[in-house]
């Protein structure tokens, strides 16, 4: 493939970088990234990857835009309230960069469709807001051998880490299974400062681009936690867990399944966050 003059101008600030260059920009143009969730994290991820010229972006979300989403889900604008999130996203991405092919799936990501959805893609991004979905994405990426950029946000805090299956620690190496229902609040219940979604999502997009380009040190075997109240990033080193139920020495999980969705009630709202 070769770039048109317009494309060379569009991507000139990438091409100037010795680590990217024309060769790297071609890798970006050929890359396929699957974003699960077109919401708080999915918005900055999709917008920045589209601006960067990622060739194909897959977006899955079954929701419609709600007015309460607009405080952070920057893919969606006021007139989009009530519209399909993936359709709204596709339009914004096209306006930003028509070079990008956007595949949209107005669907839930489930144990029965997960493998088919991620199969064509090179990298998967976690932009979902429930624990069962986060564990499902982790497991599906492990079975499919796809790199995953995990993200999580709550209140003023966020977390990112990258997983290269069979090479680096997975989500289950750390967390094993979801918390008991009702113990850990969701953003819907506990709130989220909108910009934290932007901070965490743009780091996820950065990590995806680094994997595509094969540059730098990936955020693997390190968990990056951010606290906006203090403006502090903390890196927690980790490693593969031999007792991981998915990728450990004697795994119990041998096929995809979904953990039960938690009940929407809080038992210990004050117990979150240690300082």
């Amino acid at each position, binding site marked *: 493939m070769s770039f048109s003059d317009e494309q060379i101008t569009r991507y000139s600030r990438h091409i100037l970088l010795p680590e990217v260059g024309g060769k790297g920009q071609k890798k970006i143009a050929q890359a396929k990234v699957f974003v699960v*969730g077109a*919401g*708080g*994290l*999915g918005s900055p991820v999709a917008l920045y990857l589209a601006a960067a010229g990622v060739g194909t972006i897959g977006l899955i979300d079954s*929701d419609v835009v709600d007015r309460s*989403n607009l405080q952070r*889900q920057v893919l969606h604008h006021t007139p989009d309230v009530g519209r399909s999130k993936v359709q709204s996203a596709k339009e914004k991405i096209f306006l930003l960069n028509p070079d990008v092919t956007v595949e949209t799936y107005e669907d839930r990501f489930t144990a029965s469709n997960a493998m088919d959805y991620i199969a064509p893609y090179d990298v998967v991004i*976690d*932009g*979902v*807001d*429930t*624990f069962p979905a*986060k564990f499902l994405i982790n497991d599906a990426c492990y079975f499919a051998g796809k790199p995953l950029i995990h*993200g*999580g*946000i*709550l209140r003023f*805090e*966020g*977390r990112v880490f990258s997983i290269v299956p069979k090479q680096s620690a997975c989500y289950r*190496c*750390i*967390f*094993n299974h*979801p*918390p*008991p229902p009702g*113990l*850990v609040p*969701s*953003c819907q219940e506990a709130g*989220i400062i909108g910009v934290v*979604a932007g901070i965490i999502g743009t780091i996820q997009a950065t990590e995806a681009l680094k994997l595509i380009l094969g540059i730098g040190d990936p955020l693997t075997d390190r*968990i990056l*936690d951010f606290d906006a109240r203090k403006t502090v990033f*903390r890196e*927690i*080193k*980790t*490693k593969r*867990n031999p*007792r991981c139920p998915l990728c450990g020495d004697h795994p119990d999980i041998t096929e995809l399944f979904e953990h039960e969705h938690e009940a929407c009630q809080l038992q*210990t709202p004050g*117990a*979150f*966050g*240690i300082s």
Partner: protein
Amino acid sequence: MQLTINGKPEELQADTIMDVLKHKDVDPHMVAVELNTQIVERDQLETTNVRAGDKIEFLFYMGGGA
């Protein structure tokens, strides 16, 4: 005994990881615990001893994204 908990040095008396959790008022179901970069399984929190200088991380669940 001095321990480093979530990156901060702290002085406290504890024999096991569970003692540290109790001292910090952390529900063991709310966190993944790392001792010197190694995950400690929940069923071993009460039997895993801590020593002066250990680095302990409590990783709280963070499930949001949308």
